[in-house]
């Protein structure tokens, strides 16, 4: 099953590159998404066997993240089919500066989307650190052309920053791999790919100084890709200049997969008895990311950039939960699900708003609830979901993390956490509600546009799931999240 999970997107991507006609290619994209999602669903029913000598396998943690990725990709594929149809071939006029630019060829875009999915699948199914690293590197390389879809200087700037900063981060993670190999050397752990199960078995034999240094490098290296402050500087640019489909996938799926790297490192550290070493660092990075987001969100005029900073904030919350440990890990895993679904919905709706209003500035957009009714409702609902209001699922997950902090007696952490959440809520609500309500400006879109079904259906579905998770967590989901959390200690 695992080979199929990997081969379907890869082959589909390669085929999509060579297909000439647009409509069959978009159909291929959606079909590949459906096939991948079906296979992922099948893994919930029947546990897939490890493959390639134990290097590829699906444990509880991997399966959870694979499911998130798969669902998100399906939603994105459906949306992309409508989006690509809407993007006119040939020259387009830039909204902000008015020059003409080209888009990348659609074949490249579709192929890279599918290869991106393949790379992310590889990240979630790899059980060896070496392979995990290669997969994360592959995601960087597959997503760079996606960010550079609109061929103009701003997206080129964003792509360059993304490529350079993430490559440096991944190079540091490679050094972390080598440190881990040194930590594991000389005591019988000789497998060169650093298979996770071997490391967990022989964890007490690992050399502590090298293991700690390796964890540090993993945290900084993969943390760059996760978007933890102060390594997040590529995130706002890349997420705001990429097409909304790509931003949704980057925020919702890729950041999680990169976090998986840090989580695997934490697993090994915990097994070696060094869990406390990483915890302080994780809590620190988590709170710092939330603080940076709290500084940049209020007053942010570009709403896609605001969503990007919100991703930074939520990755900070996830890291904070990881650092606190115990019940907070359950909260983190639940929050990963909630955040990914909500953020993807937000970005997809933002894409609709951008297409209708032709402006990226929140000050220019007014009255979304009137002009784009369905999108408007989703926009407001997703705002409440992302900032952690009941009855959405994020409320439960953020509350769990808070409770764990208070149970552990970390009062300052809890208070800072709450204060930052409040500031971000105010900042985002000002922008989003201001955009949603009121009467639309005459200069921008005045007429109520017909909303294509495929543009709104994915977002509605995603927000619906988050609402459902807030009201009732199905036992199968709960047990899956619990098994993922227990793997982390």
């Amino acid at each position, binding site marked *: 099953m695992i080979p199929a999970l990997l081969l379907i997107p890869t082959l589909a991507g390669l085929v999509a590159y060579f297909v000439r006609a647009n409509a069959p290619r978009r159909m291929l994209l959606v079909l590949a998404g459906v096939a991948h999602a079906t296979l992922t669903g099948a893994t919930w029913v029947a546990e897939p066997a490890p493959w390639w000598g134990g290097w590829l396998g699906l444990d509880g943690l991997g399966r959870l993240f694979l499911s998130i990725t798969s669902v998100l990709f399906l939603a994105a594929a459906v949306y992309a089919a409508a989006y690509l149809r809407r993007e006119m071939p040939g020259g387009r006029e830039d909204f902000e500066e008015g020059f003409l630019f080209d888009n990348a060829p659609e074949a490249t875009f579709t192929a890279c989307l599918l290869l991106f999915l393949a790379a992310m699948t590889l990240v979630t199914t790899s059980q060896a650190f070496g392979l995990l690293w290669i997969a994360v590197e592959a995601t960087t390389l597959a997503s760079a052309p996606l960010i550079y879809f609109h061929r103009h200087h701003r997206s080129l700037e964003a792509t360059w*920053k993304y490529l350079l900063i993430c490559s440096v981060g991944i*190079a540091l993670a490679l050094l972390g791999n080598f440190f881990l190999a040194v930590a594991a050397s*000389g005591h019988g752990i000789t497998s*060169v790919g650093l298979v996770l199960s071997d490391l967990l078995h022989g964890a007490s034999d690992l050399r502590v100084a090298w293991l700690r240094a390796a964890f540090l490098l993993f945290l900084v290296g993969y943390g760059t890709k996760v978007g933890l402050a102060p390594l997040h500087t590529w995130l*706002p640019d890349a997420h705001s200049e990429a097409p909304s489909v790509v931003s949704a996938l980057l925020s919702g799926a890729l950041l999680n997969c990169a976090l998986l790297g840090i989580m695997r490192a934490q697993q090994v550290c915990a097994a070696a008895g060094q869990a406390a070493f990483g915890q302080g660092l994780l809590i620190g990075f988590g709170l710092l990311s939330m603080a940076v987001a709290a500084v940049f969100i209020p007053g942010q005029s570009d709403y896609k950039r605001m969503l990007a900073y919100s991703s930074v904030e939520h990755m900070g919350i996830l890291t904070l939960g990881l650092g606190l440990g115990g019940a907070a890990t359950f909260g983190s895993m639940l929050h990963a699900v909630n955040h990914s679904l909500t953020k993807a919905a937000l970005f997809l709706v933002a894409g609709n708003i951008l297409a209708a209003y032709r402006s990226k500035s929140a000050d220019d957009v007014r009255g979304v609830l009137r002009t784009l009714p369905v999108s408007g409702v989703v926009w407001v609902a997703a705002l409440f979901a992302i900032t952690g209001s009941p009855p959405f699922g994020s409320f439960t997950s953020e509350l769990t993390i808070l409770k764990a902090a208070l149970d552990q007696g970390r009062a300052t952490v809890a208070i800072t956490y709450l204060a930052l959440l409040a500031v971000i809520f105010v900042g985002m609500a000002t922008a989003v509600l201001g955009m949603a309500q009121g009467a639309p400006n005459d200069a921008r879109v005045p007429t109520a546009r017909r909303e294509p079904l495929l543009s709104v259906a994915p977002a509605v579905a995603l927000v619906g799931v988050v609402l459902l998770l807030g009201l009732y967590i199905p036992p199968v989901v709960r047990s899956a999240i619990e098994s993922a959390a227990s793997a982390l200690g």
Partner: protein
Amino acid sequence: MVEMVLICIVLTNFALLGSSRLSACIRLVALQGVLLGFLTLLARESALSVRAPVLALTSTGLKGVAFPWLLSRALRDADVRREVEPFVGQSLSMLLGTLALAASLWLAARLPQPNPALSPLVVPVAFFTILMGLFLIVSRKTALSQVLGYLVLENGIYAFGVGVVEGTPMLVELRVLLDLLVAVLVMGIVVFHIGREFDHIDTDQLTVLRDWDR
């Protein structure tokens, strides 16, 4: 012999700090790649088989010939001024490099010796090269010199892997080579695009995307 090669690597790093012309920098990074090929050969003397020399040859070929050629092409096609204009002046860079070398020696002394260490100098020189790579990325302004800094960073990580990690050497080298190959290809393409789009490759001027006062 190993010590000589390592010290030559350190000297190339210092020379990179003091160089002001992009073409000279590209040649220095190529020289570093060749030196690392020597290091690979010296490190695997004990290991028999044809694999080690073949790998050393491939990595030398890629890092000493192919990448520099690619980057020189990008430099020529971008048709930009050849001078690298750093944020930090050359003399100050060299002094900071000396501090970085001292810091690497201290750091390497803090970590316990890895078992089959090639030479006590390998770990400090690897750390130093990594720090120099990061410093070059941060302190230089042209996109091409940032790619060179990234190459130096990877060279440092490669030196660490070759000198320290036991077990199959293949995976170490393959991993780094793969990383380098794809990254440099992609970066070279992007630099070409940047040059074409902006008429310069000065990344210090890529400041349109920012948070306040658009």
